[in-house]
């Protein structure tokens, strides 16, 4: 099957970004150009879903060209049921980010929009690359626009946060590079991921490989205890940066586990699964408690993200279909919900220039429409049925109980913790009497803000009421992965 859809999904936003840069100081031109590029980028990904063959477990829409023949490095792209939805999600979120930054960003508009478009293209590259070097290039390159976004449009402490973010993630991926080179040598000179999946590897190197990948991916997810860069990065990042960070970038690490760790080192994955499960549960519970006491809304949502991502890694390492598919659903849902929560904080921040919960109170009296949306997204964050937030958590908890009752028991505490930290914040921000004079002067959401919140509300409800179309495309690939992982490669 020959197609260039994936290349288009990668390069339309990146090339488009340079068109946007060309707009220079003409802010409106830059905005409209960015919006058109974002829409084109999303439109090109729709055939991936429509034309996807749900019966096929392997890679689809494959593109293969030699790139650096000397090292057998290829420009090799393809998607399966695991990665395809993330390309759609990423391209979709890009549209929202452009709309969300529309009037808010007044400074260096073209560069801002361009940076997000480039990042969008690079992340599509990560999700579709099947050559390890190509993957690594996209993986590392995606750090740069995010670093710039935080560093240039961020808050007062942005330099510290950008630096922490960059160092954390860069150091993490250096070990991965060593692993990639080892695999290149071990495979007799191939960077093809699908060939690597078939390699026989002894237990000791499998464990070392697993750990090398773990360090890289755990930082990205982020997993406890390498998570402390995330709250800082979120607090300093502009709203759009937080949205992309939470909705897409965190998924890169989790995706890496499924594409590298599990299929390449299945025996090590099984051997180290208890550790992975323990780390995931710490993320769910420990971070849930930490989220409870945050005074800064963005930090609270950042910690909530880590807790929700704990469900993702938990789902992977219980090795059943409910767990893995639940984790994938959770990743997509978290894309919608965390994006929405950060946008909600952004809406308030743009008016009040504060993220402190204590500076609010009684917002519902001046912004009732906004409050309605925020309560909906908060409920989704707390995993209420009929919202997308429920589906993934529910599947992972069912999978976990099946795997081991006590693991399900610990995971299910999120029902209480998630509701506690989310709704306590909602109570203090939205409800009660009007907190102060600034709150009294707030104006309700504009048409533009209504638009992006409404779009996300539709996504959250649609996925909660009818998740079938999302999981339908995953089955074949996930079953195949689980079968593959169940076979020893020693």
């Amino acid at each position: 099957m020959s197609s260039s859809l994936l290349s288009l999904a990668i390069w339309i936003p990146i090339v488009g970004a340079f068109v946007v840069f060309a707009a220079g100081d003409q802010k409106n031109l830059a905005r409209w150009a960015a919006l058109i590029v974002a829409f084109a980028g999303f439109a090109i990904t729709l055939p991936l879903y429509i034309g996807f063959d749900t019966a096929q477990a392997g890679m689809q829409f494959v593109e293969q060209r030699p790139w650096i023949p000397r090292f057998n490095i290829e420009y090799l792209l393809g998607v399966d049921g695991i990665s395809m939805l993330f390309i759609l999600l990423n391209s979709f979120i890009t549209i929202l980010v452009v709309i969300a930054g529309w009037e808010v960003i007044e400074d260096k508009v073209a560069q801002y929009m361009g940076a997000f478009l480039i990042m969008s293209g690079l992340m599509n590259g990560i999700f579709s690359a099947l050559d390890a070097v190509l993957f690594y290039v996209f993986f590392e390159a995606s750090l740069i626009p995010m670093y710039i976004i935080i560093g240039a449009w961020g808050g007062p402490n942005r330099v510290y946060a950008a630096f922490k973010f960059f160092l954390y993630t860069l150091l993490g991926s250096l070990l991965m590079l060593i692993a990639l080179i080892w695999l290149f040598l071990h495979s007799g000179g191939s960077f093809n991921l699908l060939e690597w999946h078939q390699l026989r590897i002894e237990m000791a190197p499998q464990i070392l490989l697993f750990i090398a990948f773990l360090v890289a991916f755990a930082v990205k997810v982020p997993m406890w205890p390498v998570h402390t860069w995330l709250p800082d990065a979120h607090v300093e990042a502009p709203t759009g940066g937080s949205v992309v960070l939470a909705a897409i970038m965190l998924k890169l690490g989790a995706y890496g586990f499924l594409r590298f760790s599990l299929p390449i080192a299945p025996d090590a994955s099984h051997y180290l699964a208890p550790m992975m499960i323990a780390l995931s549960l710490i993320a769910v519970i420990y971070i849930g408690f930490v989220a409870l006491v945050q005074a800064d809304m963005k930090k609270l949502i950042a910690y909530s993200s880590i807790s929700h991502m704990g469900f993702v890694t938990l789902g992977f390492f219980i090795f059943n279909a409910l767990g893995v598919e639940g984790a994938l659903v959770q990743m997509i849902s978290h894309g919608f919900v965390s994006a929405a929560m950060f946008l909600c904080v952004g809406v308030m921040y743009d008016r009040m220039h504060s993220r402190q919960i204590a500076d609010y109170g009684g917002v519902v009296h001046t912004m009732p429409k906004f409050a309605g949306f925020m309560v909906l997204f908060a409920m989704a964050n707390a995993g209420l049925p009929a919202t997308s937030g429920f589906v993934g958590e529910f599947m992972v908890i069912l999978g976990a109980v099946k795997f081991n009752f006590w693991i399900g028991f610990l995971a299910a505490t999120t029902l209480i913790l998630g509701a506690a930290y989310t709704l306590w914040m909602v109570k203090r921000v939205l409800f009660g009497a009007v907190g102060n004079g600034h709150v009294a002067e707030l104006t309700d959401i504009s048409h533009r803000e209504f638009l992006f919140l409404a779009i996300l509300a539709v996504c959250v409800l649609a996925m909660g009421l009818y998740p079938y179309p999302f999981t339908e495309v995953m089955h074949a690939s996930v079953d195949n992965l689980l079968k593959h992982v169940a076979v020893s490669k020693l």
Partner: protein
Amino acid sequence: MKLLYLLVPLAPLLGAIVAGLFSKAVGRAGAHTVTILGVTVSFLVSLIVLFRVMGGETFNGDVYTWLESGGLKLSIGFLIDPLTAVMMVVVTFVSLMVHIYTIGYMAHDEENWPAGSLAGTNSYQRFFSYISLFTFSMLMLVMSNNFVQLFFGWEAVGLVSYLLIGFWSVRPTAVYANLKAFLVNRVGDFGFLLGIGLVAAYAGSLDYATVFGQSKALAAMTESVTGWPLVTAICIALFIGAMGKSAQFPLHVWLPDSMEGPTPISALIHAATMVTAGIFMVSRMSPLFELSDTALSFIIVVGAITTLFMALIAIVQTDIKRVVAYSTLSQLGYMTMALGASAYSVAIFHLMTHAFFKAVLFLGAGSVIIAMHHEQDMRRMGGLRKYMPITYLTVLIGAIANAGLPPFAGFFSKDSIIEAVHLANVPGAGFAYFCALAAVFVGGLYSFRLVFFAFHGKERFREAAHGHDHGHGHDDHGHGHHGVHEPHVPHESPKVVTVPLILLSIPAIASGWLIGSFLYGTWFGDAIFFSEAHHGVAHMKAEFHGVLGMMMHGVTTLPFWLAVSGAGTAWFLYIARPDLPAVIKRKAGVLATILEKKYGFDEFNEWFFAGGARGIGRGLWKGGDQAIIDGVAVNGSAKLIGWFASVVRLIQSGHIYQYAFSMIIGVFVLLTLWMNRA
């Protein structure tokens, strides 16, 4: 046929959407018209469904596949059998009455909002939207044919309850109460979800029929990791969910606080329907619960404690709504005891009669509150019967039914429960029987205390026009009379309020007479399963000789005389010698304080759970994230030795969070090692 069933939940949903999202366009009249129309359609179709079910026409089918994963097919679908049909009619009827009542109750709601609050501009429409959304959710819950949709409805009614308790979101007490209600319910849902997880893991399906079909096989299994008998584990986990939703001890703490919400929803959600969801759920799961005597024993004891100890609190409450709230807790305890005694049909019977008479009591209390201009304290009422004859009469009917005196509805259902508990043979049944009898006396006392205190005696509202505290729980139904100094003479409420009261009084009297066909006929058929070992209801059937016979027999038995003496005590204390209660309170001292403090649960939960969680959170954040993780990463290995010293020092710091942190780490290390071994 499926379309007809779909119409039942979707009609109120449509009403809710129109009234909620297009509140400005439809206006007030539009909002109540469209929602009442929706619920009326729903009620009428429910009646049709009931008649068809009586004719033997049941249904079990899926509407659409919600999700498929790991060999588990989860659907949205309906199971229409006698149990469902009864619930549908009860829910839609009470909901319809409450919708109509709300027109009167919320007529001046804008006065409950601070000036300039935009949330107050369409609060009337929003309220109608919420109660219709509630009706939709509750119908989805009772009509479900599987655990997932049950859980969906379960959480959705919790959501609407949250929104409505905190409806007057400007009040700190209201938004405290709704958060508390949601979180306490989540504790129950935690158990509920684990129960569902166990069902899915071992039965491989979440469809009722499929799961119940394997109940015998499940009963023979043990949970592989814990070694617990599987069905017992499933049933207790599911019942923990019911304890949250149906406010059973010790998860009852949210229900009294939920009185912060407007009174119509106290009647609809926190008395007649939502809180009975747990009772319904256990009855629905009777094929599982019947197979675990341990679970039944647990249930009967929890129900017994709730029945007696909550009734006792009702005696000392002075807020009219809170008396009714504690009475609701006690009545829910009766239903739970019936479940534990394997008398599921009796529990559902009491659920139905209770829905009617408790709705009457709550809506009657609401009518009083309207008349008293946002006064809920009975110490400032008295003598109201002269001014509000219809309200008085309906509340009296509700109180008699609540006390369980013949020929009112409560007599038949409550007496049957006491008999069923008496005949039960699970461990704890003896204790439950004692609690049930004691609570009959207490029930007679608090029911008639309410009637005498509020409607008879001195007209205390004439003395108390000013200077009293608005301490807690005031259901402010403002008419712009704040700070009036002249005594305000109450008057009867408008027709939109009294007509629903009268319509609800009819079944509060008469619905008990259905006992013959309801309990002892073939009504429930296969919908409820009885194990052969539990023959209480069969025994009662043999003893049953018609409604009149039951009444004749009833007046010769202990419960009747206990209720009468309760009522007599109330008469003596509040009409004959109104000076006595103060004396008794002074003499009783500690006992009265314990009851007024509600056994101290609120203080304990606030200190231990809320405070403890915040303490752990702060400790893990400051100690774990900032001191240990960031501290090490930032300072690096150069300061490793200094850090080591400080950690050693930290270990002995006496800070609880640090111990908690190390315990968590320890647990996970052990978990890792232990699982690796396996």
